[in-house]
């Protein structure tokens, strides 16, 4: 019989009949769904708790007020210095980390041979850097940036000066410490973006007599920009919530002025939450203030992320027009 002859009806497909109830499939589907909803539930419980407890104190006066009078009193306390301090350290960190991370990734993917031993060592080092606890970065920043570089700068720039200018907690050291901490995130994201660019584009450019540098700058990097910004977004998210690396390098418990110079110390939202919860003379009274400060930190992280995401979306749109 011709197997392609469809004039005769096919025999009834007995084996397609639904079999017994599949217990394992049911349980597994249920378990995957339950885990997913558990995550959403946890997120809502956390956010709900913060908003419920903090919204009463989350006022314009609170966001724009200074910390100079009644830091623990909900009626007078403001968090503007902390907002400015946190935003400055994050933005400065981004300025430090993106160029260094991108150039590292460029070297690893475009210049060095991927099988060479020193690239394997660098790759291992980057992976290990990502696994170092953040307090260790804090100690590193304190020892290296503040005590070594800062103090030497003081000796050279201000010999015999009475007080330290660079060799003390400062915005620049905190930002640099955070940049070191988030470097792996940017390197890995940029590397992935560079690897996803077709080799044919590089070859096409080189075959036209472009130099390696021209190829990297004009063909490869523009293509990798959205991926680089993804790295930036991840770095911002990681750095925003970190307190440990800035404990010894820049954040202080009380400095009511807004940081103006790179060498100024600063107050930080995350550190301030810790201060409020441990140093307050009246815990019950400070509680709404504490939650409102956490709200401010979350909102700031959200705003910085949204800004980066908007830039990336625009860049992607511009690239899509060319595809």
């Amino acid at each position, binding site marked *: 019989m011709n197997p392609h002859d469809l004039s005769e009806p096919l025999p009834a497909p007995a084996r397609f009949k639904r079999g017994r109830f599949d217990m394992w499939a049911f349980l597994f589907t249920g378990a995957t769904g339950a885990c997913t909803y558990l995550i959403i539930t946890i997120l809502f419980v956390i956010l709900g708790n913060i908003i419920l407890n903090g919204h009463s104190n989350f006022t314009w006066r609170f966001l724009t007020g200074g910390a100079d009078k009644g830091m623990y009193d909900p009626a007078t306390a403001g968090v503007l210095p902390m907002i400015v301090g946190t935003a400055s350290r994050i933005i400065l960190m981004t300025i430090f980390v993106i160029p260094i991370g991108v150039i590292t990734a460029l070297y690893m993917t475009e210049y060095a*041979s*991927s*099988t060479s031993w020193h690239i394997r060592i660098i790759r291992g080092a980057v992976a290990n850097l990502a696994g170092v606890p953040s307090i260790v970065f804090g100690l590193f920043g304190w020892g290296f940036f503040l005590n070594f570089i800062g103090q030497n700068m003081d000796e050279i720039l201000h010999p015999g000066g009475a007080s330290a200018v660079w060799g003390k907690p400062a915005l620049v050291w905190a930002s640099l410490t955070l940049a070191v901490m988030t470097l792996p995130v940017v390197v890995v994201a940029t590397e992935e973006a560079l690897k996803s660019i*077709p080799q*044919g*584009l*590089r*070859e*096409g*450019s*080189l*075959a*036209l*007599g*472009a*130099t390696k540098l*021209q190829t990297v700058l*004009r*063909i490869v990097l523009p*293509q990798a920009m959205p991926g680089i910004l993804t790295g930036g977004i991840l770095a911002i998210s990681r750095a925003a919530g970190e307190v440990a690396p800035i404990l010894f390098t820049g954040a202080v418990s009380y400095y009511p002025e807004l940081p103006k110079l790179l060498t100024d110390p600063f107050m930080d939202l995350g550190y301030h939450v810790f201060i409020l919860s441990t140093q307050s003379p009246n815990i019950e009274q400070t509680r709404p203030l504490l939650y409102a400060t956490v709200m401010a930190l979350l909102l700031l992280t959200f705003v910085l992320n949204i800004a980066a995401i908007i830039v990336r979306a625009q860049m992607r749109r511009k*690239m899509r*027009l*060319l*595809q």
Partner: protein
Amino acid sequence: MAEITTARMASDLVSSSMAPKTKEVINLDQLSLFYGTSQALKDISLKIRENVVTAFIGPSGCGKSTLLRCLNRMNDLIDNVRIEGTCEIGNQNIYGPDVDVVELRKRVGMVFQKSNPFPKSIYENIAFALRLHGVKKKNELDDVIERSLRQAALWEEVKDRLHSSGLGLSGGQQQRLCIARAVAIQPEILLMDEPASALDPLATAKIEELVMDLKKDYTIVIVTHNMQQAARVSDYTAFFYLGRLIEYDTTLKVFTNPSHKQTEDYVTGRFG
């Protein structure tokens, strides 16, 4: 031999029956190439003539693409490649110590198997290399871009949308854009690595027409899997097998009266 050559191929060959004896511009002498320890090209000696189309044919893995990529030093991009012997282009060994690879690639253009337009507009795809090589003025760029697109038989199709993306073109148009991009900087030699292998028959015919047209101005070396294509477009044919050059002669001779058994088996379709 003649009786097993298909009628189609015989008619194709008419056009290329008179292979011109022009000046030799590429001179390969005992060229060998190693990937690590495995040898991909074995002692290849070959002289390629000016303003003709030379086809490299042979089964997959025979080294024809590798050899093509030797001619503009594209193999430099691959780690662990070692090359012995010489490859002279215009009397200069391109593997010599004082060779400027960028200058070499300007003179030896390349079109790839997979069309690779930049994610830029049609105009910018061509302007890219022109700007790199010092053409900056708008009207000068416009002129060269129009001329290149006309040379690549693409002008009529894209003249109204020069500033839309090169990636929005069809496969065949993208490949012609890549050809336009390559000829814009006026190389002396144009290397084509299976330029039509990913295209439909109509687009392929256009590319072939273009190749025959371009040989007035350029020396063309084309790698192809398609025997009919080699017969149709080329004046000379080199047959490679397992990294060796088996036979190199006029296309007519290679296809109708090859001197080697392996060549005969391949061009008549017995293997490969």
